[in-house]
């Protein structure tokens, strides 16, 4: 036995134990929320935050891990609300079936939109992604026979899982939390995989990545499609929670909201966007109830975070953690 192998077998420090346990603990805490006497509205708001968290995670894959800033990320989310809502109302409210259908629609459109958008990068990509979302918005407003225009798609029933209806409240909350944890784990695996590392290379320098023989365009295209698909999971949950959808879900201000959540939480981390989504939802609820300055406040926080805290909440947390 070599001395090195013996040296490996040391006890884990408490920091390391906490570090490993943190994630499962957070997940468990989140799942427990509706069952420990949390006030009803707090749980409702948190439920909404969990759905937004899935959405923010998907944007982080694009912005934080691939370096493509999108100003139109309401597209995948909003499109899913329509696809899922329409299917659930007209055909079947079975959750898994609805999810499959809405994912199919979202991926199909993402393939086309991604193809166009990845022709450019940087600022032009941001503007084109905005334009794509605007087109979807216009279609939602104009295609009245299917979407019912500005009045919106209403009458979406409760989702059903294995034959049982999932009511709003603890049941739906649990469904949302499980999907969030699943999305998180899936993205964590993806980011650590060779594909994920290629994306990181592209983010750091497209030129160098290309020089090493990476098909940059293909990878960017794939990143767009995957991020739309994950956003679509959030959208499917959302339409059930609101029992319907309207074109406003595709409005560019919504794209701004998810961008704010993701940046606020911390790009390039995975817990960051989750924290950002929670913070955003609660902050917005508080501010809009007590002031009429939401727009100004939103802008101010956005600017401050971009200038002073570019790594968002996760960055601050990370720094506090490493200092302790």
């Amino acid at each position, binding site marked *: 036995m070599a001395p090195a192998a013996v040296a490996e077998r040391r006890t884990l420090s408490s920091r390391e134990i906490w570090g490993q346990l943190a994630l499962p603990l957070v997940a468990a805490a989140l799942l427990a929320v509706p069952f420990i006497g949390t006030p009803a509205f707090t749980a409702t708001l948190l439920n909404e935050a969990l759905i937004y968290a899935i959405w923010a995670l998907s944007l982080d894959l694009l912005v934080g891990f691939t370096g493509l*800033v999108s*100003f139109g990320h309401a597209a995948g989310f909003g499109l899913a609300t329509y696809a899922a809502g329409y299917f659930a109302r007209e055909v079947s409210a079975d959750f898994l079936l609805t999810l499959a259908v809405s994912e199919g629609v979202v991926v199909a459109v993402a393939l086309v939109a991604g*193809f*166009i958008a990845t*022709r*450019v*990068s*940087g*600022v*032009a990509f*941001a*503007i*084109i992604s*905005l*334009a*794509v979302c*605007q*087109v979807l918005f*216009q*279609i939602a*407003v*104009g295609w009245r026979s299917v979407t019912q225009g500005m009045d919106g798609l209403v009458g979406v029933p409760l989702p059903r899982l294995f034959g049982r209806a999932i009511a709003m409240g603890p049941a739906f909350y649990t469904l949302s939390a499980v999907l969030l944890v699943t999305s998180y784990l899936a993205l964590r695996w993806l980011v650590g995989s060779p594909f994920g590392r290629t994306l990181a290379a592209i983010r750091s320098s497209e030129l160098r990545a290309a020089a090493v023989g990476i098909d940059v365009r293909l990878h960017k295209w794939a990143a767009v499609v995957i991020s739309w698909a994950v956003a679509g999971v959030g959208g499917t949950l959302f339409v059930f929670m609101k029992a319907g959808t309207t074109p406003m879900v595709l409005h560019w201000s919504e794209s*701004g909201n998810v*961008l704010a959540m993701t*940046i606020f939480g911390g790009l390039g981390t995975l817990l960051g966007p989750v924290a950002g989504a929670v913070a955003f939802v609660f902050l917005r609820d508080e501010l809009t109830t007590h002031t*009429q*300055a*939401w*727009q*100004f*406040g*939103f*802008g*101010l*926080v*956005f*600017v401050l975070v*971009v*200038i002073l805290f*570019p790594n968002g909440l996760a960055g601050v947390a990370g720094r506090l953690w490493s200092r302790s």
Partner: protein
Amino acid sequence: MDVNFLFVSALNGVVYGAFLLLTSLGLSLVFGLGRVVNFAHGALYALGGYALADVMRRAGLDYWPALVAAPLVVVPLAIVMERLTIFPVRNRPEIYTLLVTFGVSFMIIGGIEYAWGTGTVLIATPRPFTGTVSLAGNQFPLYRLFAATLSLVVSAGVFAFVQLTPVGLRIRAITDDRDMAESLGIDTKWILTLVFGGAAGLAAFAGALGAPIFAVQPEMGTGILLDSFLAVILGGLGNLPGSALGAFIVAMTKSIGGGYIADWSVAFLFLVVGVVLVLRPTGVLGRGRVA
């Protein structure tokens, strides 16, 4: 096919195009020069309209002096904004200025709503341009023709400035190759501030000039911002003649399309931009940056 409808729509498109030109030129110059994409450009346009309304009401000025005063009020504000928000992120990747100005635009619009409320302010058509003129059997407001002409003149002035003056030469040098320009001793910082202020002034001027036509309300800059972005992308980022062409393509598509296919015209416009980008990522004239 109502010929009169088409004619007035087209004329309207030219008028809107002239305004779009003012804002697109500013946007393009600032980008070409400092690689800054100013999402708050629309908010500056709105601020121009409000400055006009405020100066008219508070200082009791007539429209014409207020038209001159409005950009003069907005430019210093814009420079302060640039120093406080864009300057700190100048060394970070370009996308940061887009994000920061995105946030600033919300602040400006929120500030406008706080200061002036959310209602609309109507500005009366100024003398001596009240009334209509008959063009090919259609009545068309004189003021719109005047405003379009003035916008075109000012835009031509901007072009001339960039092409013919020594300062303009420096601007073109920096746009071409910034490091080289700096090593030649050109004071890039000063010129950046000048151009940013100038672009803001152009936007504010456009907002004030358009106020009697389009009315003043907090969201007035949103539409023209998006259209300006599309115009600049169509023309190729940083390419001035391209932006001019882009502005008119956007304006005409919206105006004529808007008359015939209503809301679908916007989708159509984006489709056009998308197609152009797929085929020629450097813009219609093929001389812009891909960014």
